[in-house]
């Protein structure tokens, strides 16, 4: 990992999307054990994956991981905490007017 350079990596992954009443979820699992670090960007390749209502879809795809540079990683670690309030749930969006 360079101080200022980003590296691009490809990883086979499995995407699981559930569009069921008893579970609405969407997850990506890297199948080669790739690990994501702070500041990295991940994009699953290919067209949008849609699960019809009532179904669970699993697809094997390839993901592009853009590795953050050492500096970006450090920056994300230092500043990420400021956004931690995102984890809180308040029932409404932050929009003042709808």
């Amino acid at each position, binding site marked *: 990992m360079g101080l200022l350079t980003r590296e691009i990596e490809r990883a086979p992954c499995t995407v699981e999307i559930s569009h069921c009443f008893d579970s609405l*979820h969407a997850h990506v699992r890297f199948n080669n054990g790739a690990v994501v670090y702070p500041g990295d960007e991940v994009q699953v390749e*290919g067209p949008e994956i849609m699960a019809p209502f009532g*179904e669970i*879809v699993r697809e094997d795809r390839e993901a592009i991981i853009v590795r953050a540079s050492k500096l970006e990683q450090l920056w994300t670690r230092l500043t990420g905490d400021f956004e931690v*309030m995102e984890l809180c749930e308040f*029932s409404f*969006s932050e929009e003042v007017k709808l």
Partner: protein
Amino acid sequence: MNVQNTIAATHTADATTVEEGLAIQEAQAVLDSVSATEVAMQNTLLTPRFYTTDFDELDAIDVSSVRRDWDELIDEMVADPNKGHFRKNEAWDHVDWDGMDPDLRKEFIDFLISSCTAEFSGCVLYKEMKRRGANKDVTQLFQLMARDEARHAGFINDALREAGVAVNLGFLTQKKKYTYFRPKFIYYATYLSEKIGYARYITIFRHLQANPDHRFHPIFKWFEEWCNDEFRHGEAFALLMKTDPKLTQGINVYWIKFFLTAVYATMYVRDHQRPAFHKALGVDPDWYAHEVFTKTSKLSEQIFPITLDIEHPRWQRNLERLHKANVQIADAKEQGGVAGKLKQLAGSAKAALAFASLLTIPANKHRVPAQTRLEPVY
């Protein structure tokens, strides 16, 4: 595209690929009026955020000091008292979406989408912690919590579909950046979020039990069991924090005060931005805020050594200032130009001042009980 496995619902039982499943759905859409509206559904892309944390620190958690309480809580979650509960049944009354006041409709849909996104993001976060962790106690907990969050999200999604809003889970094919939170910030924020969520839902549930004519949507009938899930999640985070006394001592007490203030203030401001919703429920948002803060403070005494002094004269005054400043910022943004920019800056300064005034109110101190676990009694 390689479709590995499609578990089909009854009406698309023969579909072996997602395209086929979609095609069947589309073909059915013209058959009845319910699915005909689906074609014209408003499409809302869910945009959860993605996080990483210090997974080694998570793995280092040792729950042996709270083992009895921990096992009891996990057993309760494994027993899954709410399995099968979050589905529409005969108690789900007809919702007259067309006859609903347009302002209420807008605010209520905002409530559903925001709640769905929050549950969904919680699910993504917990699942990530489950997947990356190696500590069996911790990964089991996060797996169980991810299950609950996905279930809640699914239930809200069901209500949204009825309102003509389809959530789109296609965000995975968009580029997403992973941000980073320290584990302790995740504990403080999610603990409070789960407990305040419990207090919010149970207060509305009890209010509507006493005033059923204000129940304008059946989803409120499910709030009691729903918030019991939130309550259990909060208990789990309380126990996690109990395993490391440093988390609630020293400099961290200031962090706790910051989180309490930020969470309460944000809730106050957001609720006051949704007047039609609260009017329809017959709830005064000031009364509601006070009720929820009182309950949340009482609960958080289980683990936090301080609570906020919400009876202090500066408290309510500065919450109102914060709300007004927030409205000013939004108006100024809409206005634009140099004058707008100046007004926006003034608004931000007012908001910062109000928040600082809230944060500097001396906190109430108390002794944290040796026994952490609580039962939902409100």
